[in-house]
């Protein structure tokens, strides 16, 4: 086994720089990138807010301004677009609900409209969930639908047995999950499927041993994780893989100190932010999942808030929303690891 990364070196988390980086994101209107990513601004806010919350620095954003902006993205169909004037999609509806929830502002929206929107996207024939009215199906959307409904206590309105069947059909010989039945296993899809099953209390359908072994092998000598065999490591998989392992109670199957080093190495040392891998340009998506990964890996040199592996939000937010109960539905034989 290659010992290429130096375990003794201790890079520190550049907290102030990351806070400044996230704050600066809304002030980059002279950059083309700012406008090119307009369509997912609402997700950008979610990623930024999660990062700040985990750093316990969420005062860096103007809460009221954010809430007003989020509300402006809701469409008449009840769903949210990635930005005002953009079409609704489950991806952005999820980000909107997560941000509002973290601000304790879910009561600002009419929950039935959001719930109806989500329910309208379930294919009655197959139980599958569509991303929007155009019908793209993906296990990611099954998770999102389930997660959104859980925020509103409306899970019973969904045919959850059909969803579980659908997720099971998306399972592969390596124990992992793909984007749908037939799809190849991918660490990010594994996370969405596990999180979906966790909320529905149906983790019993998972082949825990095989999947844990597959996930553990995603760690490369650099300490970082890849999403599929023979692929490059990427900071965002620090989240997808570790959250999955956490749900499975198997985070200790990988070397957490090396994951931390890999993430810290990918920090942009001057202007802040975390990139997909060391030496690359940072973005808010990797900044969020890098910090969330550090939290799951038990990074010790800064008091990061604990993150919930199912919702990718601080545990305290999930607890105050009463959603932490998924943990009670984990199969008894999985005896949760000490976290």
């Amino acid at each position, binding site marked *: 086994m290659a010992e290429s990364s130096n375990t003794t070196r201790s890079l520190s988390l550049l907290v102030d720089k990351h806070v400044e980086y996230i704050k600066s994101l809304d002030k980059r209107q002279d950059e083309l990138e700012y406008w090119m990513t307009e369509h997912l601004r609402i997700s950008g806010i979610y990623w930024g807010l999660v990062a700040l919350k985990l750093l316990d620095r969420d005062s860096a954003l103007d809460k009221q301004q954010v809430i007003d902006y989020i509300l402006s993205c809701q469409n008449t169909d009840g769903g949210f677009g990635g930005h005002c004037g953009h079409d609704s999609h489950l991806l952005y509806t999820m980000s909107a609900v997560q941000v509002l929830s973290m601000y304790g502002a879910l009561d600002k929206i009419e929950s039935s409209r959001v719930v109806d929107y989500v329910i309208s996207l379930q294919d009655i024939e197959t139980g599958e969930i569509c991303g929007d009215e155009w019908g793209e199906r993906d296990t990611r959307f099954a998770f999102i639908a389930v997660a959104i409904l859980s925020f509103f206590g409306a899970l019973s309105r969904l045919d959850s047995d059909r969803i579980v069947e659908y997720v099971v059909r998306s399972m592969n010989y390596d124990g992992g999950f793909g984007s749908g039945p037939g799809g190849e296993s991918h660490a990010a899809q594994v996370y969405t499927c596990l999180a979906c099953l966790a909320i529905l209390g149906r983790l019993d359908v998972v082949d825990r041993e095989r999947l844990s072994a597959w996930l553990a092998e995603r760690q490369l000598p650099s300490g970082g994780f890849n999403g599929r065999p*023979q692929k490059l490591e990427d900071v965002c998989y620090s989240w997808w893989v570790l959250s999955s392992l956490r749900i499975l109670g198997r985070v200790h199957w990988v070397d957490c100190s090396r994951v931390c080093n890999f993430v810290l190495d990918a920090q942009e040392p001057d202007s802040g932010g975390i990139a997909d891998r060391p030496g690359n340009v940072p973005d808010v998506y990797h900044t969020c999942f890098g910090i969330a990964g550090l939290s799951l890996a038990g990074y010790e040199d800064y008091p990061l808030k604990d993150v919930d592996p199912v919702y990718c939000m601080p545990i305290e937010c999930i607890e105050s929303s009463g959603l932490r109960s998924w943990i009670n539905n984990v199969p008894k034989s999985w005896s949760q690891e000490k976290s």
Partner: protein
Amino acid sequence: MMHGKRRVAAKEPTQDEKEEARQQLEQYCALNSRVMDLKAQSVFTADALDATRQLLELNTELHTVWNYRRTIIKKLDAWKDTERRQKMLEQELEFLMKVIRNNIKSYWMWNHRMWALSLLPRATWRKELSLVDKLIGMDARNYHAWDYRRFVIARLKDTEDSDAVDEQEFAFTTAQINRDCANHSAWHNRSKLLPAILTRVDQQRREEVLQTENELIQNAIYTDPEDQNAWLYYDWLLDIQKSDEDRIRLLHNKIAAIRELLELEEDGKRPLVELVSGFAELGRLQPGSVTDAEKEECMEILRTLKGVDSYHAGRYADMSSTLSKRWNVSDLCV
């Protein structure tokens, strides 16, 4: 999201570069506003369609604009006439070929292609398959290309002999595996095709197919015993056997193969793990069939692995603890 974009030393841009960047930004914003305005005003004309084309060529990620584009196409006069619709959608596919070069990983773009093909009056799925062949030829592990391939195959099966298409796909995975036996995407697709093939052959043919499969996976294991995927596939072949008797036979083969591999390199990490899990499985299927010496060997192996493969020390400790309880032997990992 920035994937794989290298950070370069900050260099103050020249006046010309600044000007160019400013113009580029202005043009993009102007075009974007124009399209969003047209959409807000529910304009469904050929001009509006062209505006979406220009914008999507610059940015493939605008799902709202893709949606708008589809809406326009369906509202144009040409849509009502089969021939004109055929032509219009063919042009749409050509346009997508241009866009695919900008960003092969765009989910929205692939969705749009599926939409266009699904509504094409005379869809050419074979032609589409050869496009996917080309994409996989360029990048044998492309996630989108394989997902899209399965979509195309599903449609092809609606119009052609379904079993024959499955056989062809199975042969395609064999070819991909022969080119690179670590092509996980190909092994994966194979695992989705094999069960269907097995269900429609007689017992003798079934055994032949499984035997060939067993040889192929053994070949992969011997070529690269450190590739986890090959072992996972092997275990899956155990799963799909009809009887425990067959499973036990295969497990004995697996253990014999590992013994042979270990004779050559005694410190092969993966064969060692697989030896332990092989015995664990054998013991589960056939209680009493694992000897005390073999049990102790397993515990010793786990202790060694915990030392040499520190990344996964936790996994070996867990395996050791479970087996020591099940077999009533001492756990050497504590």
